[in-house]
């Protein structure tokens, strides 16, 4: 057999049929469902009188529009409440496993799936959410889909697909202390652009990726979509297996051993051909900060807001001018001179325990700067509980951060956690699009450590300086 990439292997293993029109029918092992992109899919099934083929392959949870404060009192916003109630009625009617809002295990789908052991190497995972790429950290082929496809998977357990191209990203060298997966992701997107990965599945390789924890690999794969790739992949290794062992839904005993034997084969063959190759040397990378309204507009903490006059084309210049106007930034401004009014630590990108530890290490013994509102939103109830057991909540609260209940929160502001017009925010989330965190709000994407550093100094600061202090 020809040498194959990891993506090729998972694809081949899930090929149900090749149809006469050239499309492939791919089997879907796992399906994550949340309240925002599922109601119309359930409705479609109902109208067509179709059954849901395999309810037990689904894990459902409300995360996008749930309140992160006083949740016990119910949901005030009527439209949000109706959507969560619709999910609860649908999962009940179709017998779909559901993590209730007040359950300790509730949280963001892409945090909950891995921590429950629902996410396994070599499986195919979909969800009506673009950040489904997160699960690729385990060597699973995971991608976001639309609601019509959600309905398709519910009805048939498959999706018609076209095979993507293989893209390999090699991160060479060792990340400097104080930098993490978020910096890798932003640096990559800065390099290839937000459409750089379109039509590809990205496999992340190299020593800097091997050195990442599962949390870090999830952050990296999570951001694949911001580089245009529907999926990111990291081949599973001992780090993966150690993380998974003993998780509630992970295989047990003899089944675990059988799974492990297969999972060890899930790596790209040595001579496998990639359509595109990118190599980045990361040994001298500095903490990354976005300055525009697209994740590709990024520089490092020592950098300055660029001058649109230096843009490669007229179109680029127009885009940059528009972004700088929206962001209210002047060319040449040092990144360190940019002052913040808000800080958000959380999301499916950076709402895991390691992220909160990284931020807490900076916040410890310091105070949130005057005029800054800082929010910490754990990615799940289990992350929140773990953080509280480690005393991180006290560190944040004593420093003046708010300590919230789990959900997507201010990453997209579907609940009440929104920024007011003109407010500038250092955010550990994934998108700095116009209006993403609230109409007229200004988002700068950074790592959890950099967000905490911005919170306690009131402007962007190299987190490494606070670590040395």
């Amino acid at each position, binding site marked *: 057999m020809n040498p194959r990439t990891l993506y090729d292997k998972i694809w081949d*293993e899930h090929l*149900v049929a090749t*149809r006469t*029109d*050239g499309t492939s*029918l791919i*089997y879907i*092992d796992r399906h994550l469902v949340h309240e*925002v*992109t599922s*109601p*119309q899919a359930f*409705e479609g099934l109902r109208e067509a009188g*179709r059954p849901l083929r395999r309810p037990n*392959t689904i*894990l459902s949870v409300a995360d*996008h529009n749930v309140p992160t404060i006083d949740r016990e009192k119910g949901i005030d916003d009527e*439209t949000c409440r*109706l*959507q969560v109630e*619709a999910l609860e009625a649908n999962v009940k009617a179709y017998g779909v496993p559901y993590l209730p809002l007040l359950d300790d295990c509730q949280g963001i789908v892409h945090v909950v799936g891995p921590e429950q052991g*629902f996410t*396994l190497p070599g*499986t195919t995972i979909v969800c*009506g*959410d*673009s950040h489904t790429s997160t699960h690729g950290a385990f060597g699973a082929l995971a991608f*976001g*889909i*639309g*609601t*019509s496809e959600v*309905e*398709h998977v519910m009805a*048939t357990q*498959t999706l*018609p697909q*076209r095979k993507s191209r293989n893209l390999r990203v090699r991160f060479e060298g060792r990340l400097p202390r104080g930098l993490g997966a978020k910096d890798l992701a932003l640096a990559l997107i800065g390099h290839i652009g*937000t*459409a750089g990965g*379109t*039509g590809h599945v990205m496999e992340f390789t190299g020593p800097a990726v091997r050195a990442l924890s599962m949390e870090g690999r999830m952050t990296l794969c999570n951001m694949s979509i911001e580089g*245009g790739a*529907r999926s990111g992949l990291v081949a599973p290794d001992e780090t993966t297996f150690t993380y998974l062992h003993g998780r*509630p839904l992970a*295989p047990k005993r003899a*089944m*675990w051993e*059988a*799974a492990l034997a*297969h999972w060890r084969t899930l790596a790209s063959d040595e001579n496998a051909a990639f359509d595109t190759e990118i190599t980045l040397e990361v040994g001298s990378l500095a903490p990354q900060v976005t300055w525009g309204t697209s994740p590709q507009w990024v520089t490092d903490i020592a950098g300055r807001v660029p001058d649109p006059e230096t843009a490669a084309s007229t*179109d680029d210049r127009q*885009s940059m001018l528009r972004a700088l106007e929206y962001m209210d930034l002047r060319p040449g401004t040092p990144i360190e001179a940019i002052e913040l009014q808000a800080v958000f630590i959380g999301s499916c990108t950076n709402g895991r325990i390691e992220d909160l530890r990284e931020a807490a290490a900076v916040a410890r013994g310091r105070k949130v700067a005057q005029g800054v509102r800082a929010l910490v939103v754990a990615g799940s109830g289990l992350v929140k509980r773990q953080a509280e057991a480690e005393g991180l909540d006290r560190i944040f609260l004593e420093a003046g951060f708010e300590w919230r209940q789990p959900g997507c929160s201010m990453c*997209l502001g*579907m609940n009440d956690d929104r920024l007011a017009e003109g407010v500038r925010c250092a955010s550990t989330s994934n*998108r700095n*699009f*116009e*209006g993403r965190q609230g*109409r007229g709000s200004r988002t700068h994407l950074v790592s959890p450590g950099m967000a905490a550093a911005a919170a306690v100094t009131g402007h962007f600061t190299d987190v490494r300086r606070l670590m040395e202090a």
Partner: protein
Amino acid sequence: MEPFTTLTGIAAPLLRANIDTDLIIPKQFLKTLVRSGLGQHLFHEVRYDSEGRERPDFILNQAPYRGASILLAGPNFGCGSSREHAPWALKDFGIRAILAPSFADIFYTNCFSNGLLPVALSMAAIETLATVEGPLTVDLPVQRVRGGDHSFAFDLEPARKAVLLEGLDEIRRTEANLADIAAYETRRRKEAPWVEIRVH
């Protein structure tokens, strides 16, 4: 689904790059339980001011573009969130075809699920079409866009074309493969039994 064959209509130029799905339909309108009624909120944050009044400088607030059925846009249209609310909003407004140099993958697929045609043309062709006075014609059977004295051919995968031309229901198509799916499940249970889950 309503088939797509040939469309003649007003084309609204919105020639920005990287028009993301948050811009097409912002978060506050994702709380709906139905697919219809989103057209009034299409491009909400740039189409209306903070008091909810129309911004006269926005293209879709100007005649004749209020009645546009074609959108001309920059590269990487539909990037970001997977929300199918984006094509739902475009369609509900009356847009049936989007002409841009490139599209984000998830959005591209979502268009075909809703009878919308995304047409990939060079930026030069888009800019030329934006100067045409009067309507454009998007002719799917022959894969051409015509306007004024201009005519541009476009590529489209035959399977995608068939879905639009015939208004095919993808789930019904896949149901023709139900025996293949059942056979796959039997084989997979044997070969990879650890994938089976018992959710508690």
